[in-house]
């Protein structure tokens, strides 16, 4: 197990380097530059700005210096668009925000989704099943850019219970709506995956055997069926977790959370090279880590898998 983890971490480093190089090339190929605006900046001014950020050097040198600074100083450089901030500042401010609402949304979607899925499978074609399936289809067809404004309309404008945006240092009232808006469609997917997986497991021979030998229903479900039924859900949850904690542009934009998702999209639109790279690396590293966790969880859940 330890050897497996170490091996995976060793592979992660070249993976990240490849990611940096590809992102860097794509970024440089895209037209425009971070300092262009409706008002064209005179050449002399632009030269000064390029010199200030080392953009006047050959591109291979920029890339090598960037990698050197990231690897040896953990320095992602200054933002080109937010002139008095560094990329480290941007990540340090935005990531905790998205991680907070993302983690809550993940917890919410997983707990409710798994419970609903199990309940629906146990009472197949019962009212709870119809309810769960109906809700999950409903939730899945409503994208979060529709969900978010509807939530604000109901809870902010009509009921006046919750603020329609802002973060306020992570006050609970500011977290509720982003969590619901972000979690809903994931919750729906988790419910459906859990339900079908559970149904499949419940129909298998060893469950029939367990029932035949007279085990109580709850023991059959929790000791024998739940763990194998969780496998497809767990493999789904890895990327979902990364997606959630690295933020959703829609959530960030609608709720003005100051999260990293918005920073990521803005950086791409603004050609804020250093910020694009910084957040890409963060996302890449998180994805690799999440996949590793999923693999380890797999081995723990399914004794057939040997790491």
């Amino acid at each position: 197990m330890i050897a497996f983890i170490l091996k995976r971490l060793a592979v992660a480093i070249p993976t990240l380097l490849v990611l940096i190089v590809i992102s860097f090339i794509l970024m440089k190929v895209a037209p425009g530059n971070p300092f262009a605006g409706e008002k064209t900046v005179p050449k002399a001014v632009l030269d000064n700005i390029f010199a200030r950020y080392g953009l006047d050097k050959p591109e291979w040198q920029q890339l090598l210096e960037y990698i050197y600074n990231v690897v040896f100083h953990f320095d992602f450089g200054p933002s080109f668009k937010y002139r008095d901030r560094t990329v480290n500042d941007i990540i340090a401010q935005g990531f905790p925000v998205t991680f907070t609402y993302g983690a809550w949304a993940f917890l919410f979607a997983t707990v409710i989704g798994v419970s609903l899925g199990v309940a629906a499978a146990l009472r197949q074609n019962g009212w709870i099943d119809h309810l769960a399936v109906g809700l999950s289809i409903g939730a899945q067809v409503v994208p979060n850019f529709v969900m978010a404004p509807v939530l604000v309309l109901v809870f902010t404008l009509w009921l006046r219970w919750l603020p329609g945006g802002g973060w306020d240092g992570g006050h609970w009232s500011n977290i509720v709506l982003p969590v619901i808006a972000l979690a809903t469609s994931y919750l729906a997917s988790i419910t459906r995956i859990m339900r079908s997986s559970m149904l499949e497991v419940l129909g298998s021979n060893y469950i029939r055997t367990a029932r035949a030998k007279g085990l109580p229903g709850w023991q059959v479900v929790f000791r024998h069926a739940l763990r194998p039924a969780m496998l497809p859900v767990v493999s789904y949850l890895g990327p979902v977790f990364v997606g959630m904690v690295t933020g959703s542009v829609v959530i960030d934009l609608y709720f003005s959370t100051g999260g990293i998702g918005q920073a990521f999209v803005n950086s791409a639109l603004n050609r804020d090279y250093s910020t694009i790279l910084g957040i890409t690396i963060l996302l890449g590293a998180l994805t690799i880590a999440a996949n590793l966790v999923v693999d380890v969880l797999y081995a723990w859940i399914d004794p057939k898998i040997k790491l």
Partner: protein
Amino acid sequence: MKLNGVLAAALAAGLLLGTAMTASFAAEVPEGTTLASEQIFKYRVLDNINTLDPQLVEDVDTSAVVRSLFEGLYNSGQGGDPVPGVAESYEVNADKTVYTFKLRDAKWSNGDPVTAGDFVYAWQRAVDPKTASNYAYFVGLVGVVNADDIVAGKKPVTDLGVKAIDDKTLEVTLSFSSPWFVRTLSHATLFPAPKAVIEAKGVDWTKPENIVGNGAYTLAENTPGERVVVKRNPNYWDNAKTVLEEVQFLTINDENQGLTRWRAGEVDQTDVPAGQYPALKAELPDNTYSVPNFCTYYFSVNMTDKQTNAALKDVKVREALSLAIDRDVIVNGVLQGGQTPAYSFTHPLTAGFKMPDIPAASMTQADRDAKAVQLMAEAGYGKDKPLEINYIYNTSEAHKKVATVVGQMWKEKLGVTLNLADMEFQTLLDTRHAKTYELARNAWCGDYNEASTFLSLLDSKSEQNDQGYANADVDALLAASKTSADPNVEYAAVEVQASKDVPIMPIYFYAKVFMQSASVKGWPFTDVEQNWYAKDLYKVAE
């Protein structure tokens, strides 16, 4: 001979600086007003606040924040005319090339006095290649001696035409005669900067724990993407007249979300989403405003040989196309937000600018269309020889609508096919600048309230001249305007020439369309630049 500032201003024909010059300006609360108990103004901004460093400011929202934290020599008053800020008064020599400002006893938020040296430092900093400010060119644009050479690295920053005679006297030398120099001083690039703090803290100097300003407010919180909070500065020289205790600049990217939160009372002011002005005006007439905004929306025609559409080289075709655009339909039918039709590049409300007689402006649309058809026929285009033009714009519903409607008008009236191509904003900028387009969307907002802020773009040497338009007469007129007793004469002539050459097709003048809570008072509705100062606002009890 040195003239008193008031006198000089009165002499500068057309520039009515005199009236507001002596009195300072602040929140002017009428007798008997009941103020609201909570004086917090919540203002919606579209995007992140990019920087709080005055010399690095680029956009309108960021300027609004920086104006609350710092103050220049002069501010922009209610009607957009300059009112004294850190300067009490100024004198100017006869040919309007040397301005001498007398500074008042103002303090930084840490209690240090604001001196002439702070302005010298800031302005040198703005043009210093090491600062690498996008707006470095602004200092040269307004005429400060040697600014362009310093930006280009040809001269040291100490050669900049600004010096501190003593702590309270600042002398600025200009490279050309400028009756409008004082109008440029409310621009953030020319605000003072706290040398000691910047040198001690480096790029971190604008962090809330470090920043020192001389404005009516100090920075309490800066969370990009969420909010910037500023609080009253007790060290501000006119603090006694400040009413608002706190201003929150709330980032809300989506206009509809902004409107919902305004309805919920979470923000005091927000922009009206495109197309919703008529309905909101009917529903909430006392809260819905549309005021002129200092920007022009226009189509750029590529006049260079880098594009191969020969028809666009023919002035008759360009004129016909421009005439056939029914601007009233665009502003009243498409935009519906109080925008006004444009037949000139310069905004009609520009201070001192006298709109010349541009024939197209006074014709009926039927006459314009008739003339357009005739011009096209003369140019040899018609049903049997149809014309096709490619138009590029940056992806946006509003731009698309305008382009579609114009394409429809040209198709119906002239048989011209307009092919639309949308692209990302950065790509549009690159394409326009590389001049590899035929027709492109463009827009320009004035940097200071004087016609040269628009017309200098028509100079063949201008970096912003995306059209590649080069007319020696226009260049000569613009050069002459810099030494002219009344440059507005030359400006009018430039407009007339441009309307004949049609390098651009002006479409409309922008409007700022917004919702404002009834409790907010003191907004500068008549300032075409919409330079608002939190210190001038107050909230009344509802």
